[in-house]
């Protein structure tokens, strides 16, 4: 499982950081920073929530990568 983010399209709402702070962070402009592109299975639930709640849909998970 590999997580991808599109920083150019991120609006900085920060929902991913609230949900999965070990996986996502924000830079000084609020834009998403990926801390761990291959998090362990314990983060699956939070990552899925972050994907579904991202207002700009800029987080996606590649299950085969």
């Amino acid at each position, binding site marked *: 499982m590999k997580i991808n983010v599109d920083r150019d399209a991120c609006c900085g709402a*920060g*929902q991913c*950081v*609230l949900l999965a702070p070990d996986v996502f962070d924000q830079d000084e402009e*609020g*834009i998403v920073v990926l801390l761990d592109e291959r998090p362990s299975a314990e983060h699956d639930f939070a990552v899925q929530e972050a994907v579904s709640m991202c207002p*700009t*849909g800029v987080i996606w998970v590649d299950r085969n990568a």
Partner: protein
Amino acid sequence: MGGTHPLSQPEDKMSDLLDYPIPSDRAIEPPPEWAELRQQCPVARVRLASGGEATLLTRYDDVRAMLTDGRFGRVIPASGTGVGSQDDGGTFSNDPTGVMANEEQHQAWRRLVNATFTAKRVQAMAPGIEAKAEQLIDDMLAAGASADLVPSVAFPLPVWAICELLGVPEDERERFPYWSDTALSTTRYTQEEISAARQEFGAYMAALVEAKRAEPGQDLISELIALVDQNDPRLTAQTVIGTSMALLVAGHETTASHIAKMMALFLGDRSRWEQLVADPSLVRSAVEESLRFDPNAGFGMVRWVDEEIEIAGETVPAGTTVVCSLAAANRDEGTFEGADEMDLGRRPNPHLSFGAGSYSCLGQSLARTELQIVLAALVRKVPSLELAVPVESVPRKEGLLVAGFDELPVKWGE
């Protein structure tokens, strides 16, 4: 001047059109038109309070596309349809920040203001918000066995939070509800009242900005002024005033309304409240579900298309004002299984109550944090809480872009 006067339209044409917002006398049920529109007329012509016409979208996929597609413009030009009965077209035709019309300018501004609303900064505010919520609830409980939840908790908590963030002094806060309501009016206030309030609010904020320039504090307004003084090209003094006004209105009105509406949903069917008391770990998903389920979600969003565009197989001509019902989209069975049932543990819950795309709610982390904190505190401290009147008889706010309750009478046991 936005919109067309109703009398300028032929009578027979007017009678064919659905009025939007759709009139409804149901307190916690959606109007039946939502489902009919989604199923039979997903791209509908409607008449707004200005008397002018617009195109209404109600399906989840169409509403999401409208909010995220750059061809839908955020600011309604003078030739578009105003949302309110006032002459200036209402909030969507007025932009105090001056950055909304240009996507590039908006993105630069947003990234600047985002810094204040990062998840970490909001989380750092959480202990203060929690202490304030506990204090408000304790004061309410100490005063008797019943209360109106709106002035006791729902209103003062978000006002306190946004004023802390912006650095607004405590003693002026009772003037905000009027300024906020007039700013969000569709039919409740006259143009004269709205213009006078906007002027008064603008003068107040300009004076506050000047005071902060002279004596900076640890707050958002002071930070923005510092950037202006460093000649940051993204900001002007006028933008700081407009941004502060927009954040102050957006920062308390919507959250205050939603605390009351959320509590009406949970207490109006008390099995929901009992479920929360039995399992407080549901608080986070329950807050999201209350945002999705909200039947009094207000106007929705407005966009402008200046080129011909196809939506759900229908051609919408250039020069159309497009409105959407976020709340109707949130009940779309195609996206949400059992959409008309409240499921406190629902996940995923990709509701559109904060919008979507690059104009989605800037303060959603703060709003969610406040809602989760206040709900958890009420569940913990007042498990016996119940409505003091039937939910159908709670008076509702009318004539504003936001909807809600003017009061929410509650009581509790020993």
